[in-house]
């Protein structure tokens, strides 16, 4: 059978980690070849993805277990962007050893990221529970490994231990849910499950739904399954933290989107209260937790918990609106988050990653401080930065079905969020540094990426062609 062209990115992504890792066998440890291959490969995939025409219906393959639709394509783009940025962010962790331990085996590292990304691909294009489950695991398991990448790093291994133990429990919940769902529908295929549900429900289904949400709640760091996030985010190496905070979150929310608007679509109304509750509690807890943080990555963990809550709000809306909102927001969130992590990474070269070490940044390198402020304000959702428009989409989708209460609650929580983001900006702009500051030098790559991301954060929202032409006109 002939392989349709829109499948090329997936196939390429599937094989090229082997190439990257394999290339290590043929060249010295210090050679740049794997790095170059990785760059070329990821960027090629990104370009290929962009070549796929949107709004061109969906394609099904492999006994119709693999479908590719606009949502899938755009999610792929988000995941690839996250992977590329994570790779770039990780690069100088392999070259440069300043305050922190140097990392090794960049090829395997990138390979792991690629596998996780492919897991994400699988999730968004799955059409039955089995593929679905495999994708999720494929996206998760590399993360465990990445977290513990620094074998010598004590915190890393502790974080990884916590992560994998809890993750496996979550997987168990997941499977339990799947099993009941299978039992309820008598089939693994989404369309048949949906058909069965639309014919009527029974407690079996609801138990399944409960366990599914609890299981995915872990990966999406919903309350009260968020407890792992701060520890893991802090323990893992910074680039891994960034990848976890974007890729695995994107995968998890994609999982929920596929589930809620796929098989569970007929009962979206009934599970709306659960979604609203999850969203509300999560963003509230996330905001509260971030209030008095002193360590940057822990802070980002709580902030990303809150973001997950905001994303959940969009799930209350109708399919098209919700998918649009969530994808757009994931783009924005990825960009802003990576901008923040790049700045933290640059700081982290010379000092430990705490609020205190941000002090005097505006005096030392005002452009970096501005970039930091931009990313923080974007995460806080202040117009005209992209974060605002992302949140606006989310709330728009949530409110469109009349859930004003949860939207109002989420919006009011923005004030708390703004408070702690301002705390961070304060330490970078207002606080006087104690002692003399160690100098900060940016490599060309870092500078370019920071500028690129800042421009994107500013432009992504207000420039209409981005949001309109890219995200409008889905066909599901």
């Amino acid at each position, binding site marked *: 059978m002939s392989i349709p062209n829109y499948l090329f990115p997936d196939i390429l992504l599937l094989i090229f980690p082997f190439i990257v890792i394999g290339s290590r066998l043929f060249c010295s440890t210090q050679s740049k070849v794997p790095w170059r291959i990785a760059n070329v490969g990821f960027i090629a995939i990104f370009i290929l993805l962009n070549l796929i025409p949107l709004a061109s219906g969906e394609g099904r393959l492999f006994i119709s277990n693999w479908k590719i639709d606009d949502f899938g394509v755009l999610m792929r783009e988000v995941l690839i962007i996250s992977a590329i940025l994570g790779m770039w962010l990780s690069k100088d962790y392999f070259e440069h050893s300043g305050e922190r331990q140097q990392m090794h085996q960049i090829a395997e590292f990138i390979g792991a990221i690629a596998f996780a990304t492919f897991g994400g691909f699988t999730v968004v294009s799955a059409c*039955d*529970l*089995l593929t679905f*489950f*495999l994708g999720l*695991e494929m996206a998760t*398991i590399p993360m*465990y*490994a990445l977290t*513990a990448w620094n*074998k010598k790093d*004590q*915190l890393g*291994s*502790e*974080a*990884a*231990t*916590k992560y*994998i*133990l809890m993750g*496996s*429990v979550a*997987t*168990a919940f997941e*499977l*339990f849910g*799947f*099993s*009941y769902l*299978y*039992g309820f529908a*008598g*089939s*693994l*295929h989404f369309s*048949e499950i949906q058909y069965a549900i639309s014919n009527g429900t029974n407690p079996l289904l609801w138990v399944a739904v409960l366990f599914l949400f609890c299981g995915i709640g872990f990966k999406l760091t919903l309350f009260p399954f968020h407890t792992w996030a*701060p*520890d893991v985010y*802090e*323990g893992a190496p910074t680039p891994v933290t960034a990848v976890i905070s974007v890729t695995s979150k994107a995968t998890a929310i994609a999982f929920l989107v596929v589930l809620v608007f796929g098989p569970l679509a007929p009962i979206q109304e009934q599970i709306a209260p659960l979604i609203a509750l999850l969203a509300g509690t999560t963003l509230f807890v996330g905001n509260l937790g971030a209030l008095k*943080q002193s360590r940057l990555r*822990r802070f980002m963990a709580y902030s990303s918990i809150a973001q997950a809550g905001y994303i959940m709000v969009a799930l209350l809306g109708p399919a098209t609106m919700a998918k649009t909102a969530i994808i757009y927001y994931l783009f924005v969130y990825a960009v802003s988050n990576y901008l923040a992590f790049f700045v933290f990474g640059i700081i982290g070269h010379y000092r430990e990653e705490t609020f205190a070490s941000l002090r005097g940044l505006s005096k030392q390198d005002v452009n970096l401080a501005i970039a930091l402020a931009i990313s923080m304000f974007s995460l806080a959702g202040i117009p005209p930065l992209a974060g605002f428009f992302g949140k606006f989409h989310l709330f728009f989708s949530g409110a469109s079905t009349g859930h004003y209460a949860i939207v109002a609650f989420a919006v009011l929580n923005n004030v708390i969020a703004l408070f702690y983001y301002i705390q961070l900006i304060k330490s970078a702009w207002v606080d006087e540094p104690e002692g003399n500051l160690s100098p900060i030098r940016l490599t060309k790559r870092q500078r370019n990426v920071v500028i690129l991301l800042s421009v994107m954060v500013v432009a992504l929202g207000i420039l209409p062609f981005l949001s309109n032409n890219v995200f409008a006109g889905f066909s599901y």
Partner: protein
Amino acid sequence: MNLLNCLILAFLLFGIGVWGLMRRRHLIGMLISIELMLNAANINFISFAYFTAHDSTAGALFSIFVIAVTACEMAIALAIIVTMYRRHKSLDADQLRELHD
């Protein structure tokens, strides 16, 4: 020997797993209880496949996949635990207190 019994069995197994997870402080023990929980799910799959599901191969297939996936997951878990042990010289879950607010 009907569906309900199997489900109850699976649920009990799951409960035992949870119980063990709560009781145990030894990382390996915890992994084992997690295995129990996963296998409870497997039993569900099998029994549903056997009794009710019209697409009965899928369930069995699923459980096999689960076993495979769980295997590699456990492999990584053990690897991590080994590195843990190298650092901490103990496998006590209570010792993992360095990352906290």
